[in-house]
């Protein structure tokens, strides 16, 4: 097991290589959290963020759909209070509440036989049951990434869907090639998970990310 980067640092690393991520702020206090939310625009999410925190949802460290300054500062205070000594340095991440009917997952994984692979799959609560995922060996080209999108069995999710436009394939290719480039530029990278990758008005955006590096 290697060491994980915080959500913010994970996203920052992937964004450097072209993976679209949500605009977000890192703050240290409830007041700063409310101020950041005011700048981003409501509703927002608040999450406790730190290098050692890998399973936020399981630990109840994510607060969704916060609609005003009071609820943001209250949530931030609770999150900071929930941090344990093992969590090390922590902060609160404030990000816009991203909504979309479609979720994908994307990532990097080191295969024992084939080395670093790039993955794309259908996300959401049924992701595991659907198991609609496809892999390529890193590095990939943009053409490889397009092929990956074509590989998905659930092609209807890529077209116009429930009043939302079709998924912007160029942006989805950016995600996959960005992951591949991130692996190429960081030999210590062991894995990356972009989950969920939510489609907002046709644009895929990384709402959460976790990068693991060799210890």
């Amino acid at each position: 097991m290697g060491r994980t980067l915080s959500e913010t640092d994970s996203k920052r690393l992937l964004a450097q290589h072209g993976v679209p991520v949500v605009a977000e702020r890192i703050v240290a206090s409830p007041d700063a959290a409310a101020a950041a939310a005011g700048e981003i625009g409501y509703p927002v999410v608040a999450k406790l963020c730190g290098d050692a925190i890998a399973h936020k949802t399981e630990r109840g460290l994510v607060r969704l759909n916060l609609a005003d300054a009071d609820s943001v500062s209250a949530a931030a205070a609770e999150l900071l209070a929930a941090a344990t000594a093992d969590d090390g340095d922590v902060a609160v991440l404030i990000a816009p509440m991203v909504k979309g009917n479609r979720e994908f997952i994307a990532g990097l994984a080191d295969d024992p036989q084939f080395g670093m692979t790039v993955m794309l799959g259908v996300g959401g609560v049924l992701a595991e049951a659907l198991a609609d995922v496809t892999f390529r060996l890193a590095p990939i080209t943009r053409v490889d990434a397009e092929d990956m999108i074509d590989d998905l069995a659930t092609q209807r999710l890529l077209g116009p869907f429930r009043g939302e436009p079709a998924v912007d394939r160029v942006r989805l290719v950016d995600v996959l090639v960005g992951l591949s480039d991130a692996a190429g530029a960081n030999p210590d990278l062991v894995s990356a998970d972009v989950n969920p990758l939510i489609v907002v008005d046709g644009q895929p955006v990384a709402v959460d990310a976790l990068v693991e590096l060799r210890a």
Partner: protein
Amino acid sequence: MKRDNFDALFDPKGVIVAGASTHPGKFGFVALHNLLAAGYKGKVFATNLEGTPVLGIDTVADIDDLPAGEADMVFVCTPAAANIELLRKCAGKGVRAAFITSAGYGEAGPKGIEAQHELVRIADELGILLAGPNGQGVISTPSSMCAQIVAPFPPRGRIGIASQSGNFVSSFMNYAQHYGVGVSRAVSAGNAAMVTVPDYLDFYADDPETAVGLAYVEGLADGREFFERIRAVAERMPLVLVKGGASEVGARAAASHTGSLATDDRVFDGACRQAGVVRAPSIEEAYEAAATFATQPLPKGPNVCVVTTAGGWGVVTADAVGRTRGLQLMPLPDDLRAALDQHLPPRWSRNNPIDLAGGETKDTIPTILEIAANHPDVDSVVFLGMGIQGNQGRMEKDGPFYPEHGLERIVSYHERQDRRFTQTAAEISDAVGKPILTATELSMADPSNPAVVGCRESGKLCYASANRAVTALAHLWDYARHRQRRGLD
């Protein structure tokens, strides 16, 4: 290994069968038998401990007693313990390649593994390409060489086979025998101690006798290296691959068969797509895909046009195309519909599938096929409903009334027509450079049916069903599209 070592393996000027036996139940007998029976063009020598003749061939007890420079390949049926000495002596006579059938090597525990390392080391030192050990053999149709301890010897063709399992070499070649779309080279890699499946495929990719590779693999020693190798092969020729151990239960079986590590099959699948390698789930689908690559031009686009003499076949084939990712059952363009109207009665389908609805006269079928195949929007054609008349003709020929009552004349007419139609399909395909796949179950039910014979004589595979033709076509288009998207043509 160098290219001329592979040449010595596949096109040797002479072969020594080491360990030829007088007992017809022994591999050493069967190997010599098959080599002679297939009519190998080069010189044949054999060794046997007693020096007794086998199958009319004089044998020697010692390689030393053979002339130098006459044989460049040795086919080894002797026990493992004898083989190092054998290789040394063969090298002295000019041998550059050895196929080792002997067991008792890597598959036989730590001592066998040690013996295998030693065998490879010596072969390497002697400049001998070592195929096997523990393999079934090698065939090469341009040299009429059947150096293997099993049947069959397939017809000559352009499919190059390499397999981790010897029995699948036989399976592929049995299909080749049945359908008539033949093989250039085939080799059972056995333990692949020195030469691996990708090494053979790499040779095939530059071999003028071979147009497509067909391979079976189970375990991989190094997935990444395998990927780079097959990608380099697929850039030069189409490669069809079957991988055993794709499911979880299959992977356990493969691990006990080859002793190699299993990986997530979805990763292997993605690697194949990335490499432009056609992956088939079964041996028959793999053979049919390879036979299609060997005999049909690549489609330039996804548009499939179905031509049928009767409705039901067309409908089911339309379903098959509709279900197949990548392929499209194109709507019939107006100008094509108008052109066909000129030659068909009003009851024809007037759409795709082009259903002639029994409205054909003597030359209608070739005419329709030619018009459809020539239309610029049509990328490929599936051609159905051939052989019906020939099938009736067979019943009449076998019945009590033949040749009276005008039967001789009508049967012979229908036979000529059926054969002509499938041959014409091949000619049109060659002329327009688009795949035309003929499908009828008579391909299996009665290979002597004139429509089936027409396919075979024109060198094409007669598909046993339209679904199987569509599957083969999908593999062709996947490969063609892979090349197009990457500017490889």
